[in-house]
């Protein structure tokens, strides 16, 4: 190849390419089924959402309103009420994801016995296997004002004055939802079980044995090792979990539909829930599309910014 003069390459390349297409056109048949479904259920809805965000749309009739939907969002008191809630849920989600699962992962990683490591990993994975709906509904039962175990425990230990209707009291409902993992599919208190633990553990397990042995020889204590060796080396996992948690919380509303539907009042309203209600209860699908577009743009910005900000200073050391 290297000995061929340039002219002859220029001559043969188009012919070869043509020959290859002639031979490999059945390859397109391999990607057609995937693309048919993608066009129907992914690309078309994607562009339709942007298009209809400029319209009054009830699913059948359309009337062009320009940026009217976006203007209406600025004065929407339901959306305004949802912003502090989403901030609370995101802050709680990030705090819980960054603390206890990381601590537990570090402790499991430092267990001497391989068998204990596997047992704990197994035990903390099982709650992920239970259907998400079951977890949330069991929590609803725990929060039950009359029959719920949380209030019974508070009454039993003499803290009855703190017992309340956790999901119906507008001052605490949003925190009660935050405690069971926010709007998304988290695992509630004590927050150790779940995907975050598995991700941290995978990161810790990929640290080379030599680094850890060397630190042990140098007499580094556990705390020093955690902050100066383990944490910098699993920066990729920490970043992944941070971005994932934020993005999940911004768009999630499954838990809210199931537990409070945004109430009492708007005390647990989140943007996703507002979008859902506008689209499927009030028939304002154009407006709902506009909310979806704004959420999408916010999520893209957060992803790009956090990926740039938290980029590792060491080159070629990506996650």
């Amino acid at each position, binding site marked *: 190849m290297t000995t061929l003069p340039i002219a002859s390459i220029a001559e043969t390349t188009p012919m070869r390419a043509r020959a290859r297409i002639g031979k490999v056109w059945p390859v397109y048949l391999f990607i057609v089924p*995937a693309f048919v479904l993608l066009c129907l259920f992914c690309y078309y809805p994607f562009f339709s*959402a942007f298009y*209809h965000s400029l319209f009054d749309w009830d699913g059948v009739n359309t009337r062009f309103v320009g940026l009217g939907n976006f203007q209406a969002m600025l004065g929407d008191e339901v959306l305004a009420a949802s912003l502090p809630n989403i901030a609370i849920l995101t802050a709680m989600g990030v705090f819980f994801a960054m603390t206890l699962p990381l601590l537990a992962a570090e402790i499991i990683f430092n267990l001497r016995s391989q068998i204990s490591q596997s047992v704990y990993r197994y035990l903390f994975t099982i709650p992920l296997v239970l259907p998400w709906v079951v977890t949330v509904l069991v929590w609803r039962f725990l929060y039950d004002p009359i029959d719920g175990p949380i209030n019974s425990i508070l009454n039993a230990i003499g803290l009855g004055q703190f017992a309340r209707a956790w999901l119906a009291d507008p001052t605490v409902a949003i925190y009660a939802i935050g405690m069971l993992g926010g709007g998304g599919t988290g695992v509630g208190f004590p927050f150790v079980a779940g995907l975050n633990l598995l991700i941290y553990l995978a990161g810790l397990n990929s640290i080379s044995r030599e680094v850890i042995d060397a630190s042990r020889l140098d007499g580094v204590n556990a705390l020093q090792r955690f902050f100066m060796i383990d944490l910098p080396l699993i920066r990729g996992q920490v970043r992944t979990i941070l971005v994932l948690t934020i993005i999940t919380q911004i768009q999630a509303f499954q838990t809210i539909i199931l537990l409070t539907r945004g109430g009492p009042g708007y005390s647990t309203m989140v943007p996703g829930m507002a979008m859902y209600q506008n689209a499927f209860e009030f028939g304002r699908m154009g407006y*709902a599309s506009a909310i979806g577009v704004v959420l999408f743009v916010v999520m893209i910005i957060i992803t790009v910014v956090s990926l740039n900000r938290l980029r590792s200073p060491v080159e070629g050391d990506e996650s």
Partner: protein
Amino acid sequence: MTTANLSVTTTRAKRPLPELLAQADLGKHAFLLIAVVLTYAPFWIMFTVSFKDQAQFYHSVWELDFPMHFENYESASAVVGRYIANSVFVTVATIIGTIVFSSLAAFAFARYRFPAKRLLFWMIISLLMVPSILTMVPAFVLVRQMGLMNSHWGLILPGIAGHQVFAIFLLRGYMASLPEELFEAARIDGASIFHCYFHIALPLSRPILSVVVITTLLGSWNDFVWPLLIINSDSLRTVPIGLAFFQTQFSTNHGPLMAGYVLSSLPLLLVFVLTSREFIRGLTAGAVKF
């Protein structure tokens, strides 16, 4: 001298106990066990209550009471059995469709060069950044126009479409790493593209296919908002929406309600027990997708 000697011997004599404690990681086990107990407490209550009648329930939720009321499971399974069967059908169909469609496309992207390949692949991968919250409303209107409302196909087809994006991403990487010699040899023997796909690439990709199966299984089994929009009749409900409505039928009777929760947890638990290693791998891999 003597004092120094003495101190050495005393520390030596004292050492075994703390060292043994350290060896046993007692503090670490204490922390982790407390976390395990707190994590499982809600599910333990679900389990005990599922065997109780109302009187036993008001007595205590923490321990099993006798006689255990297995009839809770009978009345629960009469309702939940249907939801589980529906979920199994929808999930299995979604998994099969996802595997077939994504492995075909991934094979083409991994092993062949063809015009517009990079553009087409980029078009698929960029969908990983599109959240379902953006496409939900138009997709709902589309499915309604297609006449798929209140049918399992309204769940399966969009399910395959959504799950295959990440599956193509995973499978393409894996299939691209397979050694070219295998395909070369088959091609020299006159094997067709389809032969290369079905008899070489697919069998060799089994480890990554299991990851695709697990991520699709979890996503499909737990899907809540979309089935809530598409399915109206009770007889077609899947587990998540079924349980959400099931709650209203037994509103004051906690026993059968919890029995229903336990029953609906069993299928995935069974899969996990049988395939725990692949399962944990699939969970971790699935997390990276947004």
